[in-house]
């Protein structure tokens, strides 16, 4: 694992620690949602600029999109199937309730 990754995990862990010590679960923090949205938009735009500036990516955007779609469909089906198997194995019914409780 490289250092950037440790930095990311460390920062998230710091957030969890600070959030659990200083913030309450009942109160609504509007600024938190707004700031998250802002950071997300900046990130997505920057990602878009990188995609757009890369001629190789732009020229194969259609194939990239199609591959992404196929992978997504497989991924959804696979996780659904595995979760269904685990639920059956745990003896939960369709509502997620244990049959013998």
């Amino acid at each position, binding site marked *: 694992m490289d250092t950037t990754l440790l930095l990311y995990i460390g920062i998230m862990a710091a957030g969890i620690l600070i959030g659990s010590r200083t913030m309450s679960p009942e109160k609504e923090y509007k600024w938190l949602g707004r700031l998250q949205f802002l950071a997300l938009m900046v990130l997505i735009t920057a990602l878009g600029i990188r995609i757009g500036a890369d001629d190789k990516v732009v020229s194969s955007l259609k194939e990239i999109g199609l591959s992404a779609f196929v992978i997504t469909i497989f991924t959804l089906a*696979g996780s659904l199937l595995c979760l269904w198997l685990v639920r059956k194995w745990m003896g939960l019914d369709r509502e997620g309730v244990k049959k013998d409780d």
Partner: protein
Amino acid sequence: MTRSIVAAVTAGILAGYFIAPEALVRSCGALITGGLCLLLFLVGLDIGRQGTILEDIKKVGFRVLLFPVAVIVGTLVFAAASSLLLPLSPRETMAVASGLGWYSLAPMLLAEYSASLSAMSFLSNVMREVLSIVLIPFVAKYIGHTECIALPAAAAMDTTLPIVVGATSDRIAIYSITSGVVLSFAVPVLVPLVMEL
């Protein structure tokens, strides 16, 4: 939300393609790292604020951790299988899928390996979230309630949580959140791990 994301990425692509001064593109790397740090910190605050994850897991039992494990196994195995249909290696399709729906983090982690994989990861993980939103009501009705948390994977703890709870019941919320949190932690570990294979 979906509309804002599509608008932002389209504006970015157009700007990158038509305007693209070298300096702007190069500064994107720093912008992405900085923005990601901010976002991860805020997501952390949000998780920590609820402060009950560990107690929640204890209450419903540690077997609840089997759900995110099932999501990871299903995602990776089927992603590997999808490479049979695509001009990609199983390692590449698994790398794309290991974003587990976290489209703001996973593409950044892949950017250092390949620009096309990074773009594919972004698209696929956005699609995972959008398709989940569409499919959750049907899965809840015809397959089962717990299965709903498998579709959005990491997003089950935040953006798609209201949809999962709305389509199922309050008792699924706790499964949805714990699974989403575990999967979110798995993303920054899983993506590089798959690339090192």
